[in-house]
């Protein structure tokens, strides 16, 4: 029976009273099911008040200014309830008005343009809606009546050519991104007048937009190829959990940054600075070390030198509200402080272990294949190694996600300085068109000041609501077929089930997710809502979070295990967990809700389970 075809048609639906439900659902959800017996049941998580919730104060006219390839970025509308929306784990802090440039350039332009150009046979990219400051995403289906066969034929023509050209084309893209970065980073903004700043802003925006064109133009075919290989492996009987291991152990610039931080840690210890780090609050470290003189000053010079190469990264993906390490060195100093408190992470050993584990996984897979199967497996493996999604996932973050928003941020901050703003980041609470108007002289800062204050308040209010934001909204099927949603966002059946039913900390003892980093470990839970608190992590703790992004990587050198609400086998936590040999389970959906700081858990990265052994006294 082809359930798929009827699943989303509203005409066949009936709503069932909650009393007849078979499994626990939170009271705000209801079931919708096919008239035919045995039809799949969708759960509807109503959008409810989110449809009418006012967006940022005085945001009228902020939407619909930017070109979208298929479907523009928006807030929730009543008809959105018929689609599946999932809370995007990339921005756990929420987005300020100017940071929604990501939604416009990344999702509404980058993903949609790439999906249409390639074309992606399965859909048209990603649509998103804002609930307050939080982003929900949804795949854009092909419109009714699309000639799938023709779209697939076009994909069939484009993919082999693209794969052949991949290593060279990525080098070209990287060179283009580096050239753009160098130009923007060198620009002396202080010397510019408003007109000059407006030019710089537009140039930074063009760079931002172009970076996301490249991002998704590369990501989709890499992902399709990986998923194809992974599917073939499954067909050949190679366990799904082993496929990621076949591609691990290739160095990336992110890991190089981690090595530099450990090298700085060694130098701090050698210079006798460990006691200073131990005795100083993270936020005061820079000032204390600068003022200490002697070896501390020398060390800070070294530190800043390293940051000049490796510090152009933010504590989150593509967000103009976030400073780079160069602007605010608190995060790397905090990491070094925590590194000083524990034995040295042996990068070479971890790297060799990852490589040895990769080769063992390859041998193990080959030993179970016939000669003919081995030939197909080897050809596929060679292809996905040449166009290695796992490696690219880390590599592109350095040149795109972690620094792409910085040039826009710098112009915005310079504008704030020049207009004498109350706070240096006031301008990230303006929408793009307001910032442009300010520079063009069409608006005055004084007139914008009240809305900036109101929006700060709005942002903070929604930031506090993040933990209670539903993980999924709208019409949630019991199974998602789109492998991108499954492998990247981790929308497995377990995830959907747990996300729909919510989590009662009293009831849930075991969480099930996707096993992505091997091994079993026990430790005390540390729930982190965003990277700002990364330095709170104690060595040997179990990191529990919505998801990790590249700036979280150094933490993997200290933690016992990692548990994420979101993310599949291709997510950042999965990739880093494998590289660092840290037991990691993703897509648990409700880990941050159910677990509390101090809980003792056992994380089984082979089976994909997280078991609570003891609850912290505080919570019980």
């Amino acid at each position, binding site marked *: 029976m082809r359930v798929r075809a009827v699943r989303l048609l509203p005409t066949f639906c009936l709503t069932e009273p909650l009393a007849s439900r078979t499994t626990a659902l939170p009271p705000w959800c209801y079931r919708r099911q096919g008239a035919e017996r045995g039809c799949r049941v969708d759960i509807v998580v109503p959008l409810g008040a989110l449809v009418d919730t006012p967006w940022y104060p005085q945001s009228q006219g902020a939407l619909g200014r930017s070109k979208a390839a298929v479907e523009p970025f928006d807030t929730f509308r009543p008809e959105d309830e018929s689609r599946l929306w999932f809370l995007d784990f990339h921005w756990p802090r929420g987005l300020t008005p100017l940071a929604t440039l990501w939604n416009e350039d990344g999702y509404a332009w980058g993903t949609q343009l790439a999906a249409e150009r390639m074309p992606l046979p399965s859909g048209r990219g990603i649509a998103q809606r804002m609930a307050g400051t939080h982003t929900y995403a949804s795949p854009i289906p092909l419109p009714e009546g699309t000639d*799938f066969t023709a779209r*697939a034929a076009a994909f069939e023509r484009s993919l082999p050519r693209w794969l052949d050209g991949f290593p060279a084309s990525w080098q070209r893209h990287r060179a283009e991104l580096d050239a753009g970065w160098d130009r923007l980073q060198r620009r002396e903004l202080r010397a510019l007048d408003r007109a000059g700043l407006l030019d710089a802003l537009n140039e930074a925006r063009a760079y931002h937009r172009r970076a996301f064109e490249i991002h998704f133009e590369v990501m989709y075919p890499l992902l399709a190829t990986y998923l194809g290989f992974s599917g073939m492996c499954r067909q050949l009987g190679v366990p799904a959990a082993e496929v990621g291991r076949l591609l691990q152990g290739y160095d990336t610039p992110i890991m190089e940054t981690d090595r530099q931080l450990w090298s700085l840690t060694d130098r701090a210890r050698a210079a006798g600075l460990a006691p200073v780090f131990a005795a100083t609050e993270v936020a005061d470290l820079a000032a204390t070390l600068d003022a200490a003189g002697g070896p501390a000053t020398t060390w800070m010079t070294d530190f800043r030198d390293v940051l000049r190469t490796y510090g152009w990264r933010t504590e989150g993906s593509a967000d103009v509200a976030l400073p780079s390490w160069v602007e605010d060195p608190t995060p790397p100093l905090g990491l070094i402080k925590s590194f000083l408190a524990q034995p040295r992470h042996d990068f070479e050993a971890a790297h060799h272990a990852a490589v040895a584990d990769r080769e063992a996984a390859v041998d193990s897979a080959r030993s179970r294949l016939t*000669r003919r199967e081995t*030939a197909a497996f080897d050809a596929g493996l060679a292809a996905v190694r040449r166009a290695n999604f796992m490696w690219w996932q880390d590599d592109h973050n350095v040149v795109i996600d972690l620094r792409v928003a910085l040039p826009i941020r710098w112009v915005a901050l310079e504008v704030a300085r020049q207009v004498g703003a109350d706070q240096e980041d006031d301008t990230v609470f303006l929408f793009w068109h307001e910032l442009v108007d300010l520079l063009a002289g069409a608006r005055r800062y004084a007139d914008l000041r009240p809305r900036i204050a109101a929006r700060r308040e709005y942002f903070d209010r929604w930031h506090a609501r993040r933990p209670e934001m539903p993980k999924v909204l709208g019409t949630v099927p019991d199974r998602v077929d789109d492998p991108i949603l499954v492998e990247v966002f981790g929308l497995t059946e377990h995830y959907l089930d747990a996300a729909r039913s919510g989590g009662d900390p009293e009831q849930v003892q075991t969480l099930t997710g996707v096993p992505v980093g091997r091994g079993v470990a026990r430790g005390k839970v540390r729930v982190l809502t965003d990277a700002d608190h990364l330095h709170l992590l104690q060595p040997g703790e179990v990191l529990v979070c919505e998801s990790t992004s590249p700036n979280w990587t150094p933490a993997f050198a200290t933690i016992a295990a990692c548990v994420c609400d979101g993310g599949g086998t291709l997510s950042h936590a999965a990739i880093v967990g494998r590289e660092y040999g840290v037991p990691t389970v993703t897509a648990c959906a409700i880990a941050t809700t159910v677990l509390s700081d101090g809980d003792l858990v056992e994380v089984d990265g082979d089976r994909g389970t997280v078991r609570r052994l003891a609850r912290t006294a505080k919570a019980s």
Partner: protein
Amino acid sequence: MSRVLWLDDLEPHDATARVGPKLGRLAELSAVGVEVPRGFAVTASACAEHEGAAGLTDVLAAALGRLDGTPAPLEVSALARDLHAHYLSCPVEPAVAAEVEAAYRELVAQVRDDVVAVRSSALGEDAREASFAGVFDSYLGLRGATDVVAAVRECWASRFSARALTYQLRRPWAAAQWMPMAVGVLELLPAYSSGVAFSAHPTTGARDRIVVEGTFGWGEAVVQGLVTPDRAELDAQDGRLLRYGVADKAVLSTLAPGGAGMVAVPMPGARRSEAVLDPGTLRAVGDVVRTIDQFYGHPVDVEWVVTQGPPRRCVVVQARPVTISGPVPLPVWDPVDAAMRYAFGATRSPDGWVR
């Protein structure tokens, strides 16, 4: 017409026509060097001779007349009960019985063991279009001429069980005659281990994989579903072991005391979780399965026995063609094909990719 035909004397080209495919294939395989049990066939004409002499021919013809059209299941089972009972009430025609007894004694003298297997081999059985696997009776572990003759009659009579009747009526030519049947009397090999092997993967149909299943002793407990066998997968090209699953083999089939067939007894503790398919066994079974597959040019399943040694010998007691639905594509890496199938859930149709 001969009442008894020795497998050694059969010519491969007409063996199946003369003694049915089950015994005929053993003669064919013997001719290409595959080791098979020694023994003889009690021919279909011996069966016909017995039925004529016992007055069964007319009874059976009349019964066939009553089954014209599409009889109700209850009618079939009532008739089967009557026919079967009547068949077994008729003593075996003495001339036939004497010749079977004499041949049995000769077989016993040859193999220096008096335990045999008596197997039905219906003519037309196992034909590609109508598989009769397991419909007709077989008896393992019989001892003594009297029991052997009785078992031959049981095999003949097994054509008139309700199940066999139903199967026979499905065949387009059923209306004309009852299925003729030969019966094999074969040495029962002293089994160290036994099992089945498939020259193509039984579930995926992949032609480059051989699957071998086996247990200690005789295979009866596996056939009856009393025990799960160990399972190995081999590369059909080079015989390399790809997978091995050790099963908990709780039950062992062994000869009943006094030669009254097979019984299931608890497996001795140490053997339950011991791997039964050692490298030598897998090599021998893998080779023999490949030989048979190549000989028939078609995937086969094979029942094999490895004898207690020394030396251990790998003997094939049965081989059957396996029905595989449609050709199985060889695994080939094609990035478009893989992405379309596994990333986008599409399938290839004559008009292109569809979902």
